[in-house]
C-alpha cells in the first residue's frame, strides 16, 4: 500500500488576522500544518501500520512549506514531496488540484490519497474532490471512519459524515478521501521521528518535473478574481449583563429579552 497525505501549510488558527490596504496580515503567527490535515496524516500512518507499505506527505507551496512536511515525517510519514515553483503563485483550487493530481501520478503506485476536510485559510474544501475527478478515482469525502480496507481485494468501506448522520459506503481502490475530525486522535511527533525529519531529504518537484505548463497554473490560469479583502463589521454594542435580585428574576429578565428579540 502506498498512502499519500496531502497537506497545506497555513497560519495557526489562533492567528489574529488583520487587513490593511487590501492585504492580509497574520502578524507573527506561526505557520503550521493545517489542523484538519493532522487527521489525514494520522490516518495515513495508521493505514500504513495496519496494512504495510508507506505513507508519503505531499504539499504544494513555497520553500518554507518544507517545514510542514517535516512535521508529517516527525509524526511517522516515511517521506515527503514538495511541489514548489515560482509560477504557482496565485493558483486557485483547480490549479492546485491539477498540480497535486500530477504529483500523485508521478509517485505512480498510490492506492489511497487522504486530505483534511478543508484548509482553515481558504475554507472551501474543493481540492480533494477536484483531485479525485482529475485522477478519475473514487471520491469519499467527510470520512469519519475507515471501517474496512482489503488490500488484496482492493476494496474500502467508510462512514461519511453528512448533515443527517452517517452514510456508509464501499468503493474500489484507488480512492481520494477527505477526513473529518472524529476519525482519530492525531499523535504527537516522537523524539526519533523528529530526528528522522531533521535529516530527511525532501525532494522539490517543479512544474516541468510534473509535465505541466506555466499557463495551466498560477495567477495566469485563475478562474476566479479576488477583488477585495476586508475585515467583517464588528458587532455593535456592549453586552447587557442581566442580574436580578435572585435567580428567578435574572432568568425572567433574560427570557423577557429573548422574547422581545423574537428569537424564540
Amino acid at each position: 500500500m502506498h498512502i499519500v497525505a496531502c497537506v497545506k501549510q497555513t497560519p495557526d488558527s489562533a492567528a489574529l488576522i488583520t487587513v490593511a490596504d487590501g492585504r492580509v496580515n497574520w502578524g507573527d503567527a506561526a505557520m503550521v500544518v493545517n489542523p484538519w490535515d493532522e487527521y489525514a496524516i494520522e490516518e495515513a500512518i495508521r493505514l500504513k501500520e495496519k496494512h504495510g507499505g508507506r505513507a508519503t506527505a505531499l504539499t504544494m507551496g513555497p520553500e518554507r512549506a518544507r517545514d510542514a512536511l517535516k512535521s508529517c515525517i516527525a509524526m511517522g510519514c516515511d517521506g515527503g514531496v514538495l511541489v514548489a515553483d515560482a509560477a504557482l503563485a496565485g493558483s486557485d483550487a483547480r490549479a492546485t488540484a491539477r498540480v497535486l493530481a500530477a504529483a500523485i501520478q508521478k509517485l505512480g503506485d498510490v492506492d489511497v490519497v487522504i486530505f483534511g476536510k478543508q484548509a482553515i485559510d481558504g475554507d472551501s474544501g474543493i481540492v480533494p474532490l477536484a483531485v479525485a475527478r482529475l485522477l478519475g478515482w473514487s471520491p469519499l469525502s467527510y470520512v469519519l471512519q475507515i471501517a474496512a480496507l482489503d488490500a488484496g481485494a482492493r476494496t474500502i468501506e467508510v462512514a461519511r459524515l453528512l448533515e443527517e448522520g452517517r452514510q456508509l459506503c464501499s468503493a474500489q481502490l484507488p480512492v481520494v478521501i477527505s477526513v473529518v475530525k472524529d476519525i482519530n486522535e492525531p499523535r504527537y511527533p516522537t523524539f526519533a521521528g523528529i530526528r528522522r525529519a531533521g535529516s530527511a531529504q525532501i525532494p522539490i518537484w517543479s512544474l516541468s518535473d510534473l509535465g505541466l505548463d506555466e499557463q495551466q497554473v498560477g495567477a495566469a490560469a485563475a478562474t476566479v478574481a479576488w477583488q477585495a479583502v476586508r475585515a467583517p463589521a464588528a458587532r455593535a454594542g456592549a453586552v447587557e449583563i442581566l442580574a436580578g435580585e435572585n435567580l428567578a428574576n435574572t432568568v425572567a429578565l433574560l427570557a423577557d429579552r429573548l422574547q422581545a428579540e423574537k428569537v424564540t
Partner: protein
Amino acid sequence: MTQPGLWVYIDQFQGAAMSASWEALGAACELSTHLQTEVAALVFGNNAEAIAREALACGASAAICCDDATLADFRVEAYASLLASLVAARQPRAVIAPATARARELIATAAVEAGTTVMADAIGLEVQGGVVNVTRPVYAGKLLCTASGVGSQPLFITLRPRAFPKPAVQVEQHPDAIEHVQAVVAEEALRVKVTGYDTVAGQVSLTDASIIVSGGRGVGGPEGFVPVRELATVLGGAMGASRAAVDAGWVPYSHQVGQTGKTVAPDLYVACGISGAIQHQAGMRTAKVIVAINKDREAPIFSLAKYGVVGDLFEVLPALSTEMRKRLGR
C-alpha cells in the same frame, strides 16, 4: 422560452429538500431580476418530481428533473457527471447551490469538469455592471473577500446556509415547466456503493438551526450537557459545543462549533460555560443574538454577547428552561 441562465441545485435527502436549498433558490431569483434571465431548479434523485414541483412554487421558472435509480442515494460521481453534461450542453451563466455537505461535493466536482472552480460558501451576491460579485468569508470568517469569475465559463457558487432568506411559497407559476432528463452514468460504472445510513431521527441540524445552545469546558463533563440539551429542546433548537468539550470526549464532533467545527448563523446562540476563544468566535460570530452564560465575567465571550448572565450554568440553565417552557407553553 429562452433557456434559464441561472441554475439552482436543490439538495435533498430521502425525498425532502434541505431548507438551505430554498434559500439558494430565493437568492437566485433575486439575482435573476438584475441579470435579465430566469431560474431553473435542478432536482436529481429517485421519485424527485415532488421536489421539482415545490421548486416551481418557490419561484423557479422551470425545473430540470432527473429521476433514476442510480440517483436514489447521493453519489458524487453520478450526480456530478449528470450536472457536468447538462452544463456542457447548455452553458448556463451560473450554477448556484446550498453549501450543504452533498452539494459542496457536487459543485466542486462538476466545476472541475467545466474547467473552472467554485466560489464556495458565499454570504452575499450582487450584480455590478452585469458582473456577479460574490462575498465569502475566509480564515473562518475573520476576513471577508469579494470575488468574481474570470473568463466565459459558467460560475459555480455555493451559498452558506442561513445567509440568505427563504423565499415565500407562491402558487406554481409554470406547473408544466418540469423537464425530465436522463442519467448519464450506469450503475455498473459507479464504483462507490452506498450500503446504509446511521442517522439520528428528529435531530436539528446545526447549520440549519435558528436556535443553538452550546456548552463548553465549563459544563465539566458529559453529564454537564444534560441541562444544555434540555434548554435546546425547550427552545426547539440544536445543541452545539466548543472544541474543548468535543476534544474532552463529552459530545461527538458533529456538535462542534468553531474554526475546526461548523460555522453557524442562528437567530439565537446561547453560549454556556464557553470562554469564547477566537476559534470558537469564528464559528458563531454572525449569530443574530448571542447570549453568554458564564461564571467568569472576564471571559472573552462577553465582548461578543448582547446579553450576559454571570453565574453558574447549572443553576441558570434549569431555571431558564423552566421559565421558557412556561412562557412558550411547552
